[in-house]
C-alpha cells in the first residue's frame, strides 16, 4: 500500500492509533494516575476531529471494499463531533472515584465502536459493512453494562447483546440471500441484479428488519427503552445519538444505492414503518416520568421523522436526513447533557424532581428548554429547520397524508417536550434542586450544543454544503 492509500483511511487509522495509545496508557499509568487518560484522550480526540476537516482524496481500496468520498468524510465528521461532545460531557462522570479502574475501557470501547461505524459508512460491499456493523454494536453492549453492579445496567447490557445478536443474524441472513441471488456482495455489482423477485424481496425485508433494530424503529424498538434507562446517562446519549446516527447514515446510503432498483417497494415499507414509529414512540413518551426513558422514547419518535427524509429517495431527501442528524446531535446531546449534569450532582432523574428548577438553576434550564424546543421543531432553534426539510422531503414525493400524520405527531410530541419545560419553569416546588455550579467541561459541552442549535439552522451554507455532497434518484 502506498502512502496515499493510508491517507484514504486516515480516520480509521487515527482512531485505531488512539485505541492503541489508550491501551498502552492504561498499562503504563499507575492506578492513581489512571484519570490522566481522560484529558489525554480528550485532547487526542479533539485533534482527530479537527484533522477530519482537512480535505481528503476520494478513492477506493481493497478492490472496492472500502471507499472514501466527501460524503463519507462529512458523515464521519458529524459522528466525530458527536463523540467529542459525549466525551466532554462525560468528563466529570468518568472521573468519579468509582469509575477509576475502568476509565480506559470506556474510551476504548467507544473509540472501537466509532472505528466500526467509520468502516461501515465507508463500506463498498456487504462484508465490510457487516464487519463494521458488528464492531459498532458489540462493544456497545459492554458499554451499556458499564455500571455492572447495578442490576439495571447489567440487564441493559444483556438485553442489548441478545437483541443485537438476533438482529445481526437476521441481517446476515438477508445478506446471504442477496449473495445467493446476485452472486456478489459488492454494492456496485449487486445493484444491476436487484429486482423485486420473491427471494430478493425477502432478502430486503430481512436486511430492513436488521437495520430497523439498530435504528430502533417500531416494531423493532422494544430493547431501546430498557437499555437507555439502564445504561449510564452518558452512554445512553452516545447510543441514542451516535449509534443511531451512524445506522441512519449507512441505512440511507444502502437504500439509495443497492436497493435503488426497488425504490417503490421500500417506499411503501417506510411509509408504514415511519407512521408506526412516530406514533408509538410519541404515545409511549407521553407518560414517561424518568428523564432517560422519556428521551429514549422521544428518540424513537425522532427516528420515525427521519424516515420521512429517506422515503423521498432523492438528493433532497438525503440532504434533509444528514442535516437533521447533524441538528439532532446537538439537540439531543444538549438535553442529555443537562440530565447528566443534574444526575451527576444530585442523582435525580425524575421529571418531578425538576420542579422549580429554573428559579435555582436558570442557565441549565434554558439550555434544556432550547434543546427540547429544538427536538420538538420550534423556531428559532435549528430543529425547526431540520423538521421542516424532513416534512418537505416527504411532500416532495406527494405523500401529503404522511406529512399530515407526521405534523400531527409533531404536535403530540410538543406536548411531552413541554412537560419538562413546565416542570422547570412553571411548577413550584417546596424542595427544588438547589443551585449548583456545574464544572467547566459540562458547561463547555452544553455551550457547543447551544451554539450548534443556534448556528446550524440559520447558516444555510451548511445545508447547501450537505446538499452538494448528497445524491439520490
Amino acid at each position, binding site marked *: 500500500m502506498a502512502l496515499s492509500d493510508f491517507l484514504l483511511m486516515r480516520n480509521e487509522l487515527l482512531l485505531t492509533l488512539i485505541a492503541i495509545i489508550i491501551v498502552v496508557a492504561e498499562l503504563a499509568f499507575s492506578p492513581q494516575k489512571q484519570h490522566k487518560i481522560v484529558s489525554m484522550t480528550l485532547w487526542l480526540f479533539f485533534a482527530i476531529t479537527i484533522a477530519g476537516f482537512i480535505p481528503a482524496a476520494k478513492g477506493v481500496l481493497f478492490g472496492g471494499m472500502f471507499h472514501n468520498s466527501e460524503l463519507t468524510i462529512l458523515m464521519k465528521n458529524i459522528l466525530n463531533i458527536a463523540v467529542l461532545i459525549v466525551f466532554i460531557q462525560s468528563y466529570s462522570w468518568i472521573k468519579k472515584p468509582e469509575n477509576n479502574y475502568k476509565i480506559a475501557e470506556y474510551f476504548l470501547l467507544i473509540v472501537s465502536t466509532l472505528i466500526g461505524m467509520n468502516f461501515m459508512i465507508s463500506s463498498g460491499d456487504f462484508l465490510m459493512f457487516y464487519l463494521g456493523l458488528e464492531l459498532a454494536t458489540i462493544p456497545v453492549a459492554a458499554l451499556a453494562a458499564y455500571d455492572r453492579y447495578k442490576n439495571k445496567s447489567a440487564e441493559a447490557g444483556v438485553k442489548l447483546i441478545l437483541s443485537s445478536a438476533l438482529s445481526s443474524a437476521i441481517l446476515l441472513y438477508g445478506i446471504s440471500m442477496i449473495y445467493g441471488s446476485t452472486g456478489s456482495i459488492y454494492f456496485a455489482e449487486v445493484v444491476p441484479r436487484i429486482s423485486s423477485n420473491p427471494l430478493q424481496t425477502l432478502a430486503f425485508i430481512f436486511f430492513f428488519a436488521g437495520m430497523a433494530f439498530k435504528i430502533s424503529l417500531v416494531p423493532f424498538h422494544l430493547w431501546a427503552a430498557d437499555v437507555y434507562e439502564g445504561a449510564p446517562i452518558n452512554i445512553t446519549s452516545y447510543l441514542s445519538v451516535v449509534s443511531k446516527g451512524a445506522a441512519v447514515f449507512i441505512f440511507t446510503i444502502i437504500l439509495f444505492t443497492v436497493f435503488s432498483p426497488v425504490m417503490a417497494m421500500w417506499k411503501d415499507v417506510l411509509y408504514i414503518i415511519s407512521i408506526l414509529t412516530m406514533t408509538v414512540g410519541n404515545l409511549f413518551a407521553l407518560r414517561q416520568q424518568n428523564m432517560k426513558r422519556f428521551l429514549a422514547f422521544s428518540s424513537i419518535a425522532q427516528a420515525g421523522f427521519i424516515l420521512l427524509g429517506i422515503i423521498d429517495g432523492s438528493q433532497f431527501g438525503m*440532504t434533509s436526513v444528514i442535516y437533521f442528524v447533524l441538528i439532532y446531535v446537538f439537540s439531543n446531546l444538549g438535553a442529555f447533557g443537562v440530565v447528566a449534569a443534574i444526575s451527576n450532582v444530585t442523582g435525580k432523574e425524575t421529571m418531578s424532581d425538576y420542579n422549580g428548577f429554573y428559579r435555582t438553576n436558570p442557565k441549565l434550564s434554558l439550555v434544556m428548554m432550547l434543546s427540547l424546543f429544538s427536538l420538538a421543531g420550534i423556531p428559532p432553534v435549528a430543529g425547526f429547520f431540520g423538521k421542516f426539510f424532513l416534512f418537505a422531503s416527504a411532500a416532495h414525493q406527494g405523500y*401529503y397524508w404522511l*406529512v*399530515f400524520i407526521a*405534523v400531527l405527531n409533531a*404536535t403530540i410530541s*410538543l406536548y411531552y417536550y413541554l412537560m419538562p419545560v*413546565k416542570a422547570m419553569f*412553571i411548577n413550584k416546588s417546596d424542595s427544588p434542586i438547589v443551585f449548583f455550579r456545574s464544572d467547566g467541561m459540562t458547561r463547555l459541552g452544553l455551550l457547543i450544543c447551544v451554539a450548534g442549535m443556534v448556528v446550524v439552522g440559520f447558516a*444555510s451554507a451548511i445545508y447547501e454544503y450537505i446538499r452538494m455532497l448528497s445524491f439520490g434518484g
Partner: protein
Amino acid sequence: MNVLNLFILIPVLTMISIILAKEIRYVRVIAAIGMGCQLVLAAVLIFTYLAIRRAGNTDEMVLTQTLNWFPSLNITYAIGVDGISVAMIGLTSIVIFAGIFASWEVSDLTKEFFVSLILLSTGVFGFFISLDLFTMFLFYEVAVIPMYLLIGIWGSGPKEYSAMKLTIMLMGGSALLLVGILGIYFYSASDGGPLTFNILQIAKVHIPLVVQKFFFPFTFIGFGVLGALFPLHTWSPDGHASAPTAVSMLHAGVLMKLGGYGCFRIAMFLLPEAAHEMAWIFIILTATSVVYGAFGAIMQKDLKYINAYSSVSHCGLVLFALLMMNKTAMDGAIIQMISHGIMTALFFALIGMIYGRTHTRYIDEMGGLMKIIPFLAVCYVIGGLASLGLPGFSGFVAEMTIFVGAFQHADTFHRIVTIVVCSSIVITAVYILRVIGILLLGPIKNNNFLSFKDATWFEKISTVTLIAGITGIGLAPLWLSNMISGSLSHIIERLTM
C-alpha cells in the same frame, strides 16, 4: 437599509438589552423605550407608505427586499408591505406599546416576562412583513410558543391547563398550515417556473383546481384556528381568561388577527378558485362563530370570559367578511381587524386593571365602580360602546361596511347567513350593556372597594393610547380605508379572476 428590517432588529435589540439589564426597574424602562421606538417607527412607516403611494407607485408590495437564504430550495428572506400589512403593523405596535404599560407591575421574573412578550411581538412583526411562506411560517411559530410560558408562569386560574390547550391547539393549526404550505410550494411550479415560497410569484401561477381544493382546507383551517374559527375556537376563552393582562391584549388584539390576515393573504390569495368553491362551508362555520360567540358572552359571569367569547364573535365576523370576497366586505374585514384589535386590547387592559384592584373578575361580586374608579370606568364604557358599534367609534365603521358588503350578494344563501350574522349586533349590545349596568353603575356591593385608587400614570398611558386608536379610526375612517383599499383591489382582482 430597508426600514422594515428595523421592525425585527429593534425588538431583538430590546430583548438583548433587557437580558443584560442589571436591575429590574431598568427592564420596564428599556421595554417601554424599545416598544416606543417601534410605535414611532410604525408611524414613520405609515407616512413613508402613503408618500410612496402618492408618488404614483402602484406595485403590489413596496419597500421590498429579497435575500437568498437556502438557494437550492429557493427559500428567501423576502420582505415587503402593502397597505394592509402596514395597517396591521400599526395595530401591533399600538397594542404592544400599551401592553408594556399594562404589565408595568409584573414583579415575578420580570425580565423573563418582558423578553417573552417582546419575542412574541417579534414573531408578529416578522409575520406581517414577510413575503416568503417559509419565513412567514417561522415567524408564526415564534409568535405562538412564548405564549405557553407567558400563560403558564404569569397566568391565573387553571393556567397550566389553558396554556397547554392553547399551545397544542395553535400548534395543531400550524401543523395543518405546514401541509398547506408544502403543497403550495411543490405546486408553485405548475406553470413550468421554479419552485418558490415567494407569495408574489406563486400568485402569478395557476395551480390546478383539484390541488387547490385539497390544500385550501389545510391552509384556511390552519390559520382559522388562530382566528378562532368555530369549532376550533375553544382554546381562546380558556387561554384568554388565564393569560396575564398584556398577553390577553396581544393575543386577542393581534394574534387572532394574524389568523385572519393569513387566511386571506395565503389561503384565499394563493388558492383563489378553491376559496370560491369551498367558501360556503366556511361561511357557515364563521357565521356560527359570530352568533355562538355572542351568545356565549351573554352566559358568562367572568369578565375575561365575556370578552374572550366576544372576541370569538368579532373575529368570526372578520373571517365571515373575508369570505364574502367583495371589496366592501373585505374592506370592512380589515377595518374590523384593526378596530377590534385595539378595542379588545383596551378591554383586556381594563379588566386587568380592575382585577388588580378587586381581585375578582365575577361581575356579580362587583358594582358601582363608576363612583370609585371613574377614569377606568369611563374607559370601559368607551370600549363597550365601540364594541357594540356606536357611530363615532371604529366598531361602527367596520360592522357597517361588512354588512353592506355582505348584502351585495343577492342569492338566498348569502342573504340568510348575513341576516343571521346581523343578529349578533343585538346580542352584543345585550352583553355589553348588561356588564356596564352591573359592573359600573348599580350600587357599590363591597365596602372594601371604596379604598381603591383610580388609574396610575402607566395605566393611563396604556388606555389613552388605545382609546386614541379607536376614536381615530371612528372619526376618520377614510385614511385607513384609503390606505388598504388600493392593496385590497389586487387581492380582489385575483379572487374574482
